[in-house]
């Protein structure tokens, strides 16, 4: 994408990576707004918040965290792999783990729907103030995270296909940029996990 001479000879600023960092900055502010709403809820309804968070499935949530961390390791290896075929396999593995993550999330959501934890008319914890708001935020945060995961999986699948065929647009440079995105989605989950699953678990 960079076709022209650069400001200083010998230094080639990687436009793709810089662009991804700039985009990730906007994503931080995007999820940041939700974390502000979470903080607000936590201070406004402390009992309801911690009470509601005990109803999330901490086992599945922990499994998912392990899945995602593993996938980040795989995508980092995939970006560093010089051989395109090895890189492609690692990217497919990462995508597969991403799909597994979403499947487990789907199981969690289904269970929560079955237990009446979806905000709305038949909300099971309606007597606890703040519980409904907690679960509203839970679904919005994990939902948005899931959307980002889907986009990441699609991106990795496309790159994996291109890397397998050694396409010029699927070289190490581009995979690195995609890996950056994947790591970010992982980092968001690392913040979401303790806030949604671990708060007041000890109590």
């Amino acid at each position, binding site marked *: *994408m*960079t*076709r*022209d*001479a*650069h*400001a*200083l*000879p010998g230094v080639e*600023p*990687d*436009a793709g990576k*810089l*662009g991804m960092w*700039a*985009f990730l*900055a*906007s*994503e931080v*502010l*995007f*999820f*940041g*707004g*939700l974390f*502000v*709403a979470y903080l*607000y809820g936590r201070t*406004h*309804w402390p009992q309801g918040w911690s009470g509601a968070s005990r109803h999330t499935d901490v086992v599945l949530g922990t499994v998912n965290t392990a899945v995602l961390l593993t996938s980040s390791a795989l995508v980092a290896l995939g970006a560093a792999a010089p051989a395109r075929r090895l890189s492609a396999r690692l990217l497919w593995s990462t995508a597969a783990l991403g799909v597994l993550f979403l499947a487990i999330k789907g199981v969690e959501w289904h269970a929560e729907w079955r237990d009446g934890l979806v*905000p*709305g008319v038949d909300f099971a914890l309606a007597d606890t*103030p*703040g519980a*409904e*708001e907690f679960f*509203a*935020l839970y679904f*919005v945060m994990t939902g*948005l995270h899931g959307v980002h995961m889907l986009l990441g999986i699609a991106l990795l699948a496309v790159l994996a296909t291109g890397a397998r065929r050694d396409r010029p647009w699927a070289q190490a440079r581009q995979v690195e940029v995609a890996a950056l995105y994947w790591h970010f989605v992982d980092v968001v989950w690392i913040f979401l996990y303790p806030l949604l699953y671990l708060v007041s678990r000890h109590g």
Partner: protein
Amino acid sequence: MSASYLTDGLTIRSWLATTDHKRIAILYAIAITGFFFVGGAAATIIRLELATPAGDLVGHDTYNKLFTAHGVIMVWLFLIPSIPSVLGNFLLPLMIGASDLAFPRINLLSWYLYVAGGLVTLAALFLGGVDTGWTFYTPYSTMFSNTWVTLVLVGVFITGFSSIATGVNFIVTLHALRAPGLTWFKLPLFAWAIYATSLILVLATPVLAITTLLVVAERLFQVGIFDPAFGGDPLLFQHLFWFYSHPAVYVMVLPAMGVVSEVLPCFARRPVFGYRAMAWAILGIASVGFLVWGHHMFVSGQSPAASLAFSLLSFIVAIPSAIKVFNWTATLYKGAIRFDAPMLYALGFVGLFTIGGLTGLFLASLTLDVHLTDTYFVVAHFHYIMVGGAVMAYFAGLHFWWPKATGRMYHELWSRIAAVLVFVGFNLTFFPQFLLGAQGMPRRYHTYPPEFQVLNLFSSAGAGVLAIGYLMPLAYFAWSLLRGAKAGDNPFAATGIEWQTRSPPPTHNFEIPPFVPPRPYDYDAQESGPASGLEVKP
């Protein structure tokens, strides 16, 4: 006509699938002009209604939908994208000696996102409209308004991605694609302004995105984030909303300041006074601008401590703007000043932005704001900055770079008449509104007590003059495209790198690598007569 980006492909498809930043800029210009006149039509009906105290032209609900439409369209579909997406897109690569932006296909995507968002927004307006005001305060917007709120917020959400994409593109372009030798402090101030604006776009727009999502969730699922009936807090909405919307006004005004910093030196034949201070002031405005959002909420019920902090910070953010105004004025000193249309608009900007900025100080003062907030004083204040400032600078830029972009000149006399009409009409329309606000006329009022009529009548009359001033360029720009005199490469003898290539430029901008001047704005007022290179017009 010799080959240029305009002749490089003559089918509609070559335009709609282009990745040439110059063509994308023109696509934006066409869309933005369309939205400007829709928003202007809403304003026309509003001013017609407000000429009399009674609500005799339209009903209450229609009026409320009109001022909402006017705000939503003008803020998100006109002011935010105008200078960055039209002038920034066209000029940034040319100003730095590059052949395109860093991500040309994302640039095209940003236009499609903008058009899609704009069409969804318009659909909401045509389906029946929205009556919440462009600020969508809760719980009115989440619980009590039975209009197309969700749809219009979806439109705004989509348009926001256009802003983010544009911002990312500009940031990377400036970091990665500057010509060899073109260091940061040799960049024209317009480039600095676009850079700072892009930082704001990338960091502030996502907060708007999440806010619109939460309002939609509240409307559809009654979750209780903003609704006190379920334990929510309406002030949380205001904080989230203004955290974006205050920096957004700097998105609107910083590029305008950048344009003025290009036009003034050219037509005064002097370098900008205090270049470094101007560059730092741009960054200062962008960063401190993130810290003042609470000055929209002094009477909202937020704590007095918060109000005190936001008031102090609001005074601080005014300092870099003041520096810029002083420096522009000093740029004129010992110049050799010409009064071409771009210069008339730029000088108009300096005067009107000064008045708008000074009235901002009134609003930053806590007790004055307690009286003046939510009155026509605020309406006048922001129109002085947005219209007297940003729109005039947009017009200055359109007129300054028109010859470069089209290869044609426009009719000089008509363009100057239009500029004067806009200046006079603008002041007639909006100055009386300061007085209305000081006397206590609240904003967003469909009907008003009769003692406010005289000033309202002046304001409506002024709007008529303003409208004529805005319509005239449609005529003489169209004429210029069909019959205008051919422009040379540099009809105004300006110093920017963009003027080193042909008018209009070839698709890849530069046939030979351009020369990077050792300093920007290398103008000399003491150069006499024809040596300045200004062409004789027929």
